[in-house]
Structures are given as structure tokens and as C-alpha cells.
């Protein structure tokens, strides 16, 4: 044993005997937990895989020793040590790894996702760098709520080369959020040496890039880690913003269980083991005379006994019950859709109403958002260009006036960092806000797919149904002569992701009631709106459709999952959204003259989808046409066609027909764009085909 650890007598004395023993106890507990899990895994008792932290104990223990129970941590695919250091019951941790009912997440999370909101630990994020955008969100909520809590965000050296690191740290820095970014630099990302992945291996130096303090710390020295964390936590609690701590450490074991560590030398491993954090701390305690040898032995013995009990508990606990895998409330806090009747045609504007209640979608959205912000002080809007005085008020002017009314602490302008905006929206929602992130264009959602798909959609489920994520992402969709990257209708992607609700707004009544329903919903809702339907005063687009309609001044919400039958008919059912909905309504007028009676349904919600309304309608008409601007292949119409065919096969008088944009990126020139978009003529033809279907018709 080489003791490379230096310590200051005064610091040690200030720490005190009890705390010193506690640090030892926790490090031994983690080591023993990991060794036990490792041996039991090899014996076939534990399913899946394990990512373990033997050798890195001082980092988790040093940092968590200065946190309060009300502070939060985020962790990684290697979370066992962080969980135990933050106070997780070792029995609950071991049972989770065993997939048992008594596990901290009921077996839904497992080794890579340990967490427990009651101890201030998010289910661990096993996407490298994933936690770096979520932690600022938790901290943003704390800052907004005026609490003095902080967030410690653990990640490995591999994460600092992720875009998420840049966006998350920069966001936390510019907003002075109470985050301690803790990099466990163990020199390897899986088998790849860190120095092969960057020319700047000095991770602490990266703090300067964001204008925040940073330190490089001996991660094998629990006291050094603790002391540095103490400074960072104090700064964060005082409103001084985030700190980046690089803790140089080493995992004695492989990246995961299948890793034989052929990429590093025995010499290197031996050198690090010489500096073992537990052995060093023991020596310090004994040499300083602070703790007697028998007390050290007793501490080690008691930590091992705890793990032994935890193991016995996990081995004897029942397996997580099979039915819990499919429990709807584990996926959504408010599962299920509307089970009653669909809504009928929009209310005409009665002459008794004031003229000014005929609103555009933009105005109706603003009214709904404004009412919710007034009603509920936890609603916070954040995004690019949303509140700057004299600025845009959002890309389509939806938010004009809101920052003047509610202040820039609730209408928060952000860097152009889609990953961070979504990560902060998700983290903030978990920690008690209702967040309304804005990314300007639906095309930019792809920048934040990890946050939406891997975090927003899954964290509740991974948590065993113990956290809710009330966040509402609004995005404009649709082609409007801006070329391929400001034109897409990506709503279909999100139907494929369990855990998300999807709302498509095509009229002003739905705009106000829909955004209000979404903002009150406890789950993540993606709201899509079409640029040509906004009717925004400042942004009249070529090809705009006047969708102005009567919007009641009263309080109302549209029910989640309720479709609207815009026009009743008996021959052909058309299900359509956005501009295709307006085409369908107008085509239906024309076809009525030809004796074809068309029923037009706006599904409004793509998730949960109003299946019963569609089945009922098609059951009557025997014919279905689905029309959307989203590309035809893999568009949501494909799912509708499949389900209707499954359900109503023998009763269909024609195959389900679909109309969507051609499968090419959207071109710029208006005449080229028109060639790609579904046209009114095509829709007319498709409905006619359906109505007059005979077997010899061939569709292109």
C-alpha cells in the first residue's frame, strides 16, 4: 500500500470521528455490495449485465457526504455506488438488480437505472451524457421554487465528448443553476482510452469554456473529493452557479461483466490498486489516531453484514409480478383516453357573440397559455426567442406579451440548445414545475430525440410509476416554402414511442382547450400545429388557410383522446389533420353534389388514439380514407389502416386508402413543393375511388 493521500490534520479534525467512520462504512459497503453482486452474477443468480464501480467508491461517497436528503443526484449506467452513497437501502438496491418485487423500482429499472425519488435520486440514465441535460432541469425547478437545494450530476469521462455535455453545462452556467457536475474520469470509455478520443484530456480545463469554476481532484482520496464538493455545493447553494469537478479515479473491474480488460496492463491496474481509496482512508484514520483499529474492524464488519442481509433479502424476495410490466399507470400518470362520444362539428359563431371571439389558432393558443400561467404559477415557458423584450415572442408570435405579463423568470429565453431545453423541461417537470418548452420548428425536435424518447417517455416507467413528467412541447409543422428542414410533419415518429401523448391542433377551439388540457395533464404531451393554419397577425404565410373560428371566452379543456367529427356522412369516412382536414371538408361539400356523403373526422389526439370513434364510423360507412401531410410510408395513417383492417376486415367495402406527402424531402420552390404535398384533387380522387371501389381499380 502506497499512501499517496495527503491530508490536513485540521480538516480531519473538523470532519470528526463519526463522519470519518461513516465515510469508511459507506465505501466498504459499496465495495462489498459490488463484489457480492459480481460473484452472484457469475453464479447465474442475476439476469442481464452489471456495470460496477469497485475502485471509484471515494467519488460517490465524498460527493454525497456533503448533500442533504433534499438534494438530488443523477447517475449513469454505473449507478450502484451513487445510489448507496445517497442513502438507498442496500436491500432495495440488491433486490432491484435481482429483478425482485422489493427492488427500488419494482424490477422495471434494474442495475443500470437504480433510483428513488424519495432519496433524491432520479432513475439512473444509461445513455452516456443523458443526465447532463436533466440535472440542470432539476436545478432549474429548485431555483424557480426558491429552494436552496442542489443537484449533483455524475457522469464518466466518455460523456464529456457528448453534445449533451456542452449543452447541459452551458445552460446551467448561463442560468447560474445549482448543479455540481461530477466527472468520474476513469480513463476509459468502455475499452477506448480517453486520450484517444480528445486532444484536450484536461477535463477540468473545460470549465473555462463555460465560464464556470472547475477543479481536478484525486478521486482515490475521499477527503479531497469531499472538500472540493463542499466548496462546490456551498457555491451552488449561495446562487453562485455550477462547478465542474473532475475526479481522477479507476474502475478495477471491466466496463461490464463480459469485459476481460485486455486493453489495459496489469501494471497499470496494480498502480491504481496501490492507491485504493478504502485502504488509504483506513490508514489515514489509524495513523492520525482519530479512530482505533478495533473500531475500523467493527466498521468493516458491520458494512459487510448489511450487504449479507441485503443479499438474503433479494434472494428470498418474490420476483416482480408479471402483470406489473403492463400496468397502464406505470407508463402514464393519467392513462387511457376519452371513452365517451366524440365531439361534433365546431360551434358556429352565433351572432350574439362579440365579433372579436372569432380567433386565430395563434390567438387561441396564447389565450390558453396565458390562462394557465395565471391559474398555475408552476407553469414555466422556456425556449429560443420567447421573451426577449422587442423580440419575436416565439417563432410565430404565439407568446407576444407573455414575458411582459409574467416576467422573464417564467418566460425563459434559452440558448439554441434543443437537448438542453428538453432536458431542462423534463427535469423541471419531475421536480415540480409544469414546463412548456419551445423548439421553434418541429424539424428541430430531432436535436432532442434522446431527451424526448429516452427520458420523457421512459423515466416514469423506469421509476416504477413514481415520478410524473408534466411537460408540453409545442411545435409548428408543415411545408410553407422553406425547403426540407423547416417543413416536416414528424408526429408519426412519436406514436411509436410508448409514454408520450400526441395532440394535433387544427382549429382555434381545439387550440385553446387542447393546450389547456395538455398543460394540466400529468404526462409528456407533444403538441403539433400547422404553420399555414396559425393565422398569426405578423406572419401571413403564402397558402395560409383562414381557420379563424369561434372560441368561447370561458374556461374549458378538450378531453384527452377525444376525436371530433367535423362533418357527418354515411358513405366514406375521411380521417385527416391540419390542411388536409380543411381540404377534406371542402371536398366533402363538392362530393355531396355528386351524391357521395362524406364523414370527416379530426382525430385530434394521435396518442391516445380515438380508436373507438374511427371503428364506429367505418363500421357504418364501410370505407376509410386517411389523409395527412406526413410522408405516406410509416405515417400514422399506416397504423390506422392496419388496425381498421384487423378490426373491420369483413365489413369493409373498399380497402383503406391513404394519402400523404410523397416519400421525398420537401423541396423549396412552391411548384415543386406542390408536387410533393397531397393535393385537394388527389384527395377528391381518392375519396371517389373509395366510394366507387371495384376490384379492377389500380391506384398509383
Amino acid at each position, binding site marked *: 500500500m502506497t499512501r499517496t493521500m495527503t491530508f490536513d490534520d485540521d480538516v480531519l479534525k473538523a470532519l470528526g470521528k463519526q463522519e470519518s467512520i461513516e465515510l469508511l462504512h459507506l465505501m466498504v459497503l459499496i465495495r462489498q455490495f459490488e*463484489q*457480492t453482486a459480481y*460473484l*452472484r452474477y*457469475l*453464479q*447465474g443468480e442475476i439476469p442481464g449485465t452489471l456495470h460496477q464501480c469497485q475502485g471509484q467508491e471515494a467519488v460517490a461517497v465524498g460527493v454525497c457526504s456533503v448533500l442533504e436528503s433534499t438534494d438530488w443526484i443523477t447517475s449513469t449506467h454505473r449507478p450502484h455506488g451513487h445510489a448507496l452513497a445517497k442513502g438507498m437501502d442496500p436491500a432495495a438496491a440488491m433486490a432491484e438488480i435481482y429483478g425482485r418485487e422489493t427492488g427500488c423500482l419494482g424490477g422495471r429499472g434494474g442495475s443500470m437505472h437504480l433510483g428513488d425519488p424519495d432519496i433524491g435520486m432520479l432513475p439512473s440514465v444509461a445513455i452516456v451524457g443523458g443526465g447532463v441535460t436533466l440535472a440542470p432541469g432539476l436545478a432549474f425547478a429548485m431555483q424557480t421554487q426558491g429552494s436552496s437545494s442542489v443537484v449533483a450530476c455524475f457522469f464518466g469521462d466518455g460523456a464529456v465528448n457528448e453534445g449533451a455535455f456542452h449543452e447541459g453545462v452551458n445552460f446551467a452556467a448561463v442560468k447560474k443553476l445549482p448543479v455540481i457536475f461530477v466527472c468520474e474520469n476513469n480513463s476509459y470509455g468502455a475499452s477506448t482510452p480517453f486520450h484517444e478520443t480528445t486532444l484536450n484530456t484536461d477535463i477540468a480545463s473545460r470549465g473555462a469554456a463555460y465560464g464556470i469554476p472547475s477543479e481536478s481532484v484525486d478521486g482515490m482520496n475521499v477527503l479531497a473529493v469531499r472538500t472540493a464538493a463542499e466548496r462546490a455545493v456551498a457555491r451552488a447553494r449561495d446562487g453562485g452557479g455550477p462547478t465542474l469537478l473532475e475526479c481522477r479515479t479507476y474502475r478495477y473491474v471491466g466496463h461490464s461483466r463480459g469485459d476481460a480488460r485486455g486493453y489495459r496492463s496489469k501494471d497499470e491496474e496494480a498502480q491504481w490498486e496501490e492507491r485504493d481509496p478504502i485502504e488509504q482512508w483506513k490508514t489515514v484514520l489509524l495513523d492520525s489516531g482519530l479512530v482505533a483499529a478495533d473500531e475500523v474492524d467493527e466498521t468493516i464488519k458491520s458494512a459487510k453484514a448489511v450487504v449479507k442481509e441485503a443479499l438474503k433479502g433479494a434472494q428470498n424476495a418474490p420476483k416482480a409480478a408479471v402483470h406489473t410490466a403492463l400496468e397502464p399507470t406505470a407508463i402514464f400518470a393519467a392513462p387511457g383516453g376519452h371513452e365517451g362520444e366524440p365531439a361534433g362539428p365546431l360551434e358556429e359563431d352565433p351572432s350574439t357573440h362579440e365579433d372579436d371571439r372569432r380567433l386565430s389558432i395563434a390567438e387561441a393558443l396564447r389565450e390558453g397559455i396565458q390562462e394557465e400561467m395565471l391559474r398555475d404559477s408552476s407553469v414555466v415557458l422556456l425556449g429560443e426567442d420567447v421573451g426577449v423584450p422587442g423580440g419575436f415572442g416565439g417563432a410565430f408570435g404565439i407568446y407576444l406579451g407573455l414575458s411582459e405579463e409574467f416576467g422573464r423568470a417564467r418566460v425563459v429565453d434559452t440558448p439554441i440548445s434543443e437537448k438542453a431545453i428538453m432536458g431542462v423541461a423534463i427535469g423541471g417537470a419531475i421536480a415540480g414545475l409544469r414546463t412548456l418548452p419551445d423548439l421553434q420548428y418541429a424539424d428541430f425536435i430531432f436535436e432532442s430525440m434522446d431527451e424526448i424518447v429516452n427520458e420523457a417517455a421512459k423515466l416514469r416507467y423506469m421509476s416504477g410509476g413514481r415520478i410524473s413528467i408534466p411537460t408540453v412541447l409545442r411545435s409548428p409543422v408543415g411545408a410553407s416554402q422553406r425547403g426540407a428542414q423547416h417543413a416536416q410533419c414528424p408526429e408519426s415518429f412519436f406514436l411509436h414511442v410508448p409514454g408520450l401523448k400526441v395532440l394535433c391542433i387544427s382549429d382555434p377551439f381545439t387550440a385553446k382547450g387542447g393546450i389547456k388540457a395538455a398543460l394540466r395533464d400529468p404526462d409528456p404531451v407533444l403538441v403539433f400545429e400547422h404553420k399555414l393554419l396559425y393565422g398569426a397577425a405578423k406572419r401571413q404565410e403564402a397558402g395560409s388557410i383562414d381557420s379563424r373560428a369561434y372560441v368561447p371566452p370561458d374556461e374549458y379543456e378538450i378531453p384527452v383522446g377525444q376525436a371530433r367529427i367535423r362533418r357527418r356522412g354515411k358513405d366514406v369516412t375521411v380521417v385527416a389533420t391540419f390542411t388536409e382536414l380543411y381540404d377534406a371538408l371542402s371536398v366533402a361539400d363538392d362530393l355531396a353534389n355528386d351524391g357521395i356523403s362524406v364523414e370527416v373526422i379530426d382525430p385530434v389526439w394521435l396518442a391516445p388514439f380515438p380508436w373507438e370513434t374511427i371503428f364506429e364510423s367505418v363500421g357504418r360507412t364501410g370505407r376509410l380514407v386517411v389523409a395527412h401531410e406526413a410522408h405516406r410510408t410509416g405515417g400514422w395513417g399506416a397504423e390506422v389502416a392496419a388496425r381498421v383492417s384487423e378490426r373491420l376486415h369483413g365489413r369493409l367495402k373498399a380497402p383503406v386508402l391513404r394519402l400523404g406527402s410523397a416519400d421525398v424531402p420537401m423541396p423549396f420552390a412552391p411548384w415543386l413543393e406542390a408536387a410533393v404535398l397531397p393535393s385537394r384533387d388527389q384527395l377528391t380522387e381518392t375519396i371517389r375511388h373509395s366510394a366507387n371501389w371495384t376490384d379492377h381499380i389500380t391506384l398509383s
Partner: protein
Amino acid sequence: MEEILMPKLGQTTDEGYIEAWHVSEGDEVEMGQPLFIVETDKAQTDVESVADGVVRKIVVPAGETVPAGTVIAYVGEVDEEVPE
């Protein structure tokens, strides 16, 4: 009483060959202490004890090949009964 099983170590086979024992019946062992050497896929690996205790019984001697999951030995307290 802990059963020590033949682990599944190989990528291409579910069997392991016990090359040699490091311990004998009656020896005290610590958790993590190597018990025997297994050869699978031409690679040699130590199999370690999952618990502190005494090697109460060696079920499979050196020189035999057995499938993964086979009980190779029992480790337990001195006074625990060894299964037949």
C-alpha cells in the same frame, strides 16, 4: 449453505473443465477467494467463493467436464448439514 455452481463463462460452450482445485474440503475460505480453475474455450479462469465459510464438500473433482449450472461444491458453516 452456499452452492458453488459451474459458471457459464464460454462464448461457444455451456461446459467447463475443472483443471485443478485450490482448496480442499474443510478449508476456511473468504468471499472472493479462488476455489478452482476452470477451462472453457481454451481460456482459464478462477472461480471464486461467493461467501465466507468452510468448504464442506467438493462434489466434482479435478479432471471432469460438467455443464454450466452444475453444483461443484458447498461452502457453509462448520455445523451446517451438507445436502446429499
